[in-house]
C-alpha cells in the first residue's frame, strides 16, 4: 500500500514540476530536464506499482531487479552485443547502405532506369521484408552472415529510394550554372548534386539505423548460434527469466538510440547549411 501511495506521489510531483518548468520560457536546460523528469517519473511509478501490487517477476520485473540483473550479467550481454550488433547489424548496415548508394548513383545516370526503379523501390520499401529472414537464414547458415544478409535486404530499398530522390533535388538553374562553369558529370556530381542530396541520404541512413537492429535481432529467431540478443530473448522468455530479457531490451534501446544519435550528429556536421539544422 505504501508503495502505491509512493507511486501516486511521484506521479503528482513529477507532473507538477514539469508543468511549472514548461510554463517558464523554453531554454536548452528545460528542454532536456523536462523529458528526463518524465522518464524518471515513469520508472518510479513502475517500481512502485510492481511492488505495491506484488506483481510476479515472471510477468513484469521491477526496474531495480532489472538493473541488478544487468550488472550481474554484463559478460553475457557483451557477448550478445558483439554477436548481434557489431557482427550482424553493423556489417549489414555498411554493406546495405553502401551498395544502395552506389546503385543509386548508377541508376541516376539513366533516366529510364530511374523512372522504372523508383516506383518499384517505393513498393518494396513498404513490404514486410522481414519475412525474408527465414529464407536468408536457410541460405547463409545460422551464424552472423545470415543476419547481415537480412539487414542488407532490409536497408537497401529505403536507402536507394532516398538517395535517388536526393540526387534529383538540385534545381535546373543550379545545374545550368554548373554547365556555365564547364563542369563535367563528375564535377557536377561531387560539387553540387551529392551535397544537395545529403539531407535525403541522411534521412535514409536514419531510417536504416533502426531497421538494421530490428533485422539482426528478428533474424535470430529463425535460428542462431547459442549467443546473440535475439537468441537470448527468445530462450529467456522460455525460461521465464524476464529480468534478463529486460536487460537485453535495455541494451537494445541504448544501442538503438546511440546509433540514431550518432547518425544525427554526423548529419548536423555535414548538412549544417540546411534550414532544418539552423537553430537560433
Amino acid at each position: 500500500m505504501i508503495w502505491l501511495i509512493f507511486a501516486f506521489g511521484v506521479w503528482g510531483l513529477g507532473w507538477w514540476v514539469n508543468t511549472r518548468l514548461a510554463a517558464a520560457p523554453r531554454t536548452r536546460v528545460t528542454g532536456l530536464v523536462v523529458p528526463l523528469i518524465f522518464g524518471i517519473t515513469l520508472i518510479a511509478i513502475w517500481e512502485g506499482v510492481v511492488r505495491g501490487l506484488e506483481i510476479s517477476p515472471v510477468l513484469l520485473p521491477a526496474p531495480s531487479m532489472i538493473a541488478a540483473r544487468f550488472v550481474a550479467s554484463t559478460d553475457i550481454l557483451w557477448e550478445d552485443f558483439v554477436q548481434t550488433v557489431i557482427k550482424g547489424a553493423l556489417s549489414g548496415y555498411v554493406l546495405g547502405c553502401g551498395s544502395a548508394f552506389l546503385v543509386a548513383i548508377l541508376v541516376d545516370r539513366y533516366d529510364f532506369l530511374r523512372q522504372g526503379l523508383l516506383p518499384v523501390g517505393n513498393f518494396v520499401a513498404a513490404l514486410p521484408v522481414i519475412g525474408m529472414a527465414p529464407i536468408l537464414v536457410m541460405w547463409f547458415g545460422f551464424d552472423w552472415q545470415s543476419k547481415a544478409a537480412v539487414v542488407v535486404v532490409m536497408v537497401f530499398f529505403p536507402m536507394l529510394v532516398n538517395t535517388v530522390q536526393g540526387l534529383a533535388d538540385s534545381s535546373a538553374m543550379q545545374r545550368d550554372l554548373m554547365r556555365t562553369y564547364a563542369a563535367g558529370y563528375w564535377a557536377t556530381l561531387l560539387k553540387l548534386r551529392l551535397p544537395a542530396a545529403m539531407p535525403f541520404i541522411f534521412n535514409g541512413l536514419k531510417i536504416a539505423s533502426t531497421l538494421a537492429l530490428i533485422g539482426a535481432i528478428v533474424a535470430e529467431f529463425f535460428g542462431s548460434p547459442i549467443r546473440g540478443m535475439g537468441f537470448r530473448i527468445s530462450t529467456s522468455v522460455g525460461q521465464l527469466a524476464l529480468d534478463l530479457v529486460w536487460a537485453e531490451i535495455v541494451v537494445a534501446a541504448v544501442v538503438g538510440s546511440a546509433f540514431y544519435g550518432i547518425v544525427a550528429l554526423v548529419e548536423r556536421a555535414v548538412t549544417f547549411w540546411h534550414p532544418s539544422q539552423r537553430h537560433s
Partner: protein
Amino acid sequence: MRQSVLPVLTVVAGIFVIWYLASIWLNAAWAYDKATRSGEELGVVALVADTWSQEKPKLPAPHQVGVEIWDTTIEKKITSKRSLIYHSWITLSATLLGFALGTGLGIALAVGIVYNRTMDMSVMPWVIASQTIPILAIAPMIIVVLNAVGISGLLPKAMISMYLSFFPVVVGMVKGLRSPDAMQLDQMRTWNASPSQTFWRLRLPSSMPYLFTSLKIGMAASLVGAIVGELPTGAVAGLGARLLAGSYYGQTIQIWSALIMAAALAAALVAIIGLLQRVTLRRMGMA
C-alpha cells in the same frame, strides 16, 4: 504517370529474369548431386528443367510459387487450415485491429501534444526515443506475458501492431495540426472562433494530407508487427506462422508463397488508403 508504365514493366521483367537465373544457379548443386547419384549425365535443358521443378529448392522458380499460391487459395476451402486465405485473414484481422488502435492513440497523443505545452515537452522526446527500441525484438515477450495474464488470441498481436503504427501517426499529425500558419490562426481569432471551432474547422482539415501519408506508413508497419507477433505463438495460424513452419520443415515454396501473399496484402492495404486519400482530398478541394 503513363510514361512511367514502360520503365516499371521493364524493371519488373528484369527482376523475374534475375529470379529465374538465380534459381538455376542456386539449385544446380542439388540437381548435379542427384544426377551423379543416379549415374546420369545432365544436359543444359535437363538441368534447367530440374532446377525449376524441385520439391524443396533453395530458391523456387516464380511459377512454382504461383502454382502453390493458386493451390492454397483458389483450390482449397477457405475454412481449411491449409488455405492461405484462412491464414491471411488471421493476420489481417490482427493488423486492422492494431492499426485502428494505433491510429486512435496516435491522434489522441498528437492533439494532446499540440494543445498542452507540458505534454509537448515531456512526451514528444520519448515518443521519438520509443521508436529506436527494436520493439519487434521484444514481441515474443509481450505475447508470452499477455498470454500468462490470460489475454490471448487477437489482442497481443494487435498490441504490437499498435505500438508500431502509432508513431508515424503522432509525428504526422503533430506536423499537420501545426501546419496552419499565423495568418490563418489570426483569421480565426478575428472571427471570434472558440478553440474547439479552430480545431474542427481549421487545424483538423489542414492536417488531412499529413494524416493520410502517415496512415500509409503505419499500415505497412502494423502488418509487419502482426506477422512478427505470430512467430512466438508456436506456429499456430497466420502468415507469420506459415513462415516459421516453412523454415522448420524446409518447405521453401511455402515460405515464398506466404511472403508473396504478405506483400500482396501490404500493397492492397496501402492502395486502399491511397484511394481514400484521393477521394477525401478531392472532396475537400485540396487535390
